[in-house]
């Protein structure tokens, strides 16, 4: 059973061996460099690769700046003065060539990475992904499980090791869905549905939040993502089903119109067409006379 650490990020999540390996990086644990799933691992890997590729050119440049600046200071009589030296074809070739080669290489990484790690691309796995519908509201997150027939606010439970497919929209303004340790940030927009595929490799509690400023209560717009062992997940669904709260259009509109953060909550039954109606703008939160 995962230790509950919310609202702190899942520091030192995962096995003890992994933690000791990462101990050198411990100040960076809990963030995007401490990935806990394939999407986040891919993102972090590309991030580190890109830095490494660029450091090959950036570090010598910084050193050269300092060396040139120091050696050619006016007071250094040993430095040669070339008052008219302003062109060298060979150097020009290098000046254009090196950045071009680096960027060419990086472009390859970009091209491959953009496709492999496209948030809409399903995660390769023998198991079928669990479906989650996400609606961002002022200022809370609504998560709908169409297959399980339950819903939750500000808390997502996922079976660890099984991919999850998210369809996301917004009932009000634009937001960004992001769990730093699982990767794959994606925007939520009214009238549009974005797609995201994530997987938590190991059980744990992960901090999630909105990344797109959405108004006065934005700072409270974080949620808990709980990756659970399969049995615990089934238990979570059972617990949710026991909730007497019903998520229908009226409940949704009442929740959406209340511009405030909300405590975590579970809904035992849902209106199956709710998400599609929200996404198709059939349930407008703002009334025409809102001013």
């Amino acid at each position, binding site marked *: 059973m995962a230790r509950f650490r919310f609202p702190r990020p899942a520091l030192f999540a995962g096995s003890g061996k992994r933690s000791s390996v990462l101990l050198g990086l411990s*100040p960076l644990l809990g963030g*995007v460099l401490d990935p806990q799933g394939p999407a986040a691992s891919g993102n972090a890997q590309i*991030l580190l690769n*890109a830095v490494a590729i660029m450091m090959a050119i950036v570090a010598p440049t910084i050193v050269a700046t300092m060396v040139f*600046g120091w050696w050619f200071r006016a007071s250094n009589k040993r430095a040669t003065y070339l008052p008219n030296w302003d062109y060298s074809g060979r150097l020009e070739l290098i000046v254009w060539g090196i950045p071009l080669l680096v960027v060419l290489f990086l472009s390859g990484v*970009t091209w491959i990475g953009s496709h492999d790690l496209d*948030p809409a691309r399903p995660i390769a796995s023998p198991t079928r992904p669990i479906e989650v519908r996400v609606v961002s509201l002022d200022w809370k997150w609504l998560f709908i499980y169409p297959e399980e027939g339950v819903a939750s606010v500000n808390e997502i439970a996922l079976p660890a090791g099984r991919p999850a497919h998210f369809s996301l929209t917004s009932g009000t303004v634009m937001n960004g869905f992001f769990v730093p340790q699982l990767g794959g940030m994606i925007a939520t927009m009214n009238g549009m549905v974005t797609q995201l595929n994530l997987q938590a490799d190991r059980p744990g509690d992960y*901090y999630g939040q909105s*990344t797109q400023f959405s108004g006065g209560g934005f700072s409270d717009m974080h949620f808990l993502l709980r990756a659970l062992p399969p049995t615990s997940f089934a238990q979570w669904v059972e617990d949710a089903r026991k909730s007497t709260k019903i998520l229908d259009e009226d409940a949704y509109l009442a929740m959406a119109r209340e511009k405030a953060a909300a405590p975590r909550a579970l809904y035992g039954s849902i209106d199956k067409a709710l998400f599609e109606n929200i996404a198709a703008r059939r349930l407008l939160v703002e009334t025409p006379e809102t001013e």
Partner: protein
Amino acid sequence: MFGKLTWAAIPWDQPIPLFAGAFVVVAALAVLLWIGVKGYFPYLWNEWITSVDHKRIGVMYVLLGLVMLLRGFVDAVMMRTQQAVAYQAPGYLPPHHYDQIFSAHGTIMIFFAAMPIVIGLMNFVVPLQLGARDVAFPTLNSTGFWLTASGALLVNISLVVGEFAQTGWLPYPPLSELPYSPGVGVDYYLWALLISGVGTLMTGINFVTTILKIRAPGMSYMRMSMFCWTALASNMLIVAAFPILTATLIMIVLDRYLGFHFFTNDGGGNMAMFVNLIWAWGHPEVYILVLPAFGVFSEVISTFSGKPLFGYRSMVIATLGICIISFVVWLHHFFTMGAGGDVNAVFGIATSIIAVVTGVKIYNWLFTMYGGRIRYNTPMLWSLGFLVTFVVGGMTGVLLAVPPADFALHNSLFVIAHFHNVIIGGVLFAAFAGVTFWFPKAFGFRLHEGWGVAVFWFTTIGFYVTFFPLYVAGLLGMTRRLQHFDVAAWRPWVLIASAGVAISALGMICQIVQLVVSIRRRAELLDPTGDPWNGRSLEWATASPPPVFNFAFLPQVNDQEPYWAIKQRAIETQHLAAVGEYLPIEMPRNSATGFLTSFFATLTGFGLIWHIWWMVIAGLVAAYAGFVWFAWRDEDEYEIPASEVQRLDGERRRAREEWLAREGNLGGVA
């Protein structure tokens, strides 16, 4: 009578904005009173407010920018201190106030600090470097400045009358639409930017025409200084990009005022279109700021290394390359909106191509230093600080242009750290370098060197201590614009960043001290020759400060570094170039059009914000009347008699004769 405006619009219950506003009002009144008592109003009116001299306008632009920089910096201090105390606590700024502060900070820093300083430097320097007497349209230039000031004024009025936007510096809908932002905050933002945007567009048109059409005889394109090239590229970007901003803001205005449905949730509006449109302007805007900064560094590094700029042609190609590519990368600001792998990859790769041309520039500056005799005056210190800082900022920028990396970092403090890294390390360092470099040209005396060095170190160290922790906080998943937070791992980094802001504040104080000390000790910092740094381009060929007509004779240019060539020739022959016969010079007359039009534009804007329709109509009619009044003027120019031209030029020549005598004794500089 006063639309939505009531006494309740003044934040009586919020002590911070109230006291800040009261302080500004009292300070402004005190300054006005002092001016009145001293009898400086006629001087101010005749020599500055109605002046159409590009040098005066340039100085006013820079002054406006520096004052607004201070205002924006105060916002920054409040944001950093709020986050420092808001760990599992509400802090001292409620969201309503905090959200206004970060929105105002971004808006002010980009539109009313960085833009005016950059445009001010271009205004002051470009005509001098081109060997021109003035810009193409002097009165338009004055109008552009005053419209910018008008926008700045509206933003600052919002501090005490009503509120400012709480939507960030780019008002993403539907948050900025009426149902979610019913107050006047977004309206202040919209009208301030629409008005100042017209001013900026005027500047763009003016400078493209100036650079392309009124250069000195012989100044072919490939003889223009690098700063003029970057100014040309920057102004072409203004002409091509600012109308997009205007159109986009008009669409939100229509949505908010007339119930249109461009970006609303209802009626079929499309907010993704806003994001595309605003960044179609917003990304070129970055290069509008940074290209002139590159120009400043090109001038400074070449001058203080005592060498021509290395790879001039490459630099020109790189500048124009950036100019064009900057229009095809806008989507990298929203990789997370789900455009798909192909689109994201194409825009990511296009973005990294900008790194190639920027890299070329960096190397060319390096090779300009190579084989030089580098004098470490303050402008050169800023340039070296820029080279080191900017490559880091560039690297993190390319990193963010790799879509999968962006999926982990978008809208995090990493992004904040990145763009402060390039805007402070690039634009602000260039602004300080440029101001120090050209200050003696503008006022006839140099800025105090010791205090300048102090500004450099405090600002640079302050920057590193503030923003490098924010890179880490971003990697830890901390998002931007948080009014409070609960994650313990972020806290140490946020606290270090606050300490960094304190160091930067010392830099700001040194900046003011430097100015005061320099003015008091101007006698010993005097520059009688007009060429304090042993410069290479034409602005150093005239007196400091230059006469209103800039050059007694239009220089004949035969070389890429015209003034350097003139000096070399003088040293070779031991004679200054012979003077011809002095002739009278026609210069444009002063005009109050810019000031009056902008005054009425401010009234119109204020009326629109508060729905005071009579004020809107009165303002528009008055602005039109002012325009017609200007158009009816019979005499646009006045004549400076030949004797006056001779007198002004004679002083400089005497100082140059002395210089030549010294150089002759030393056996030449080369």
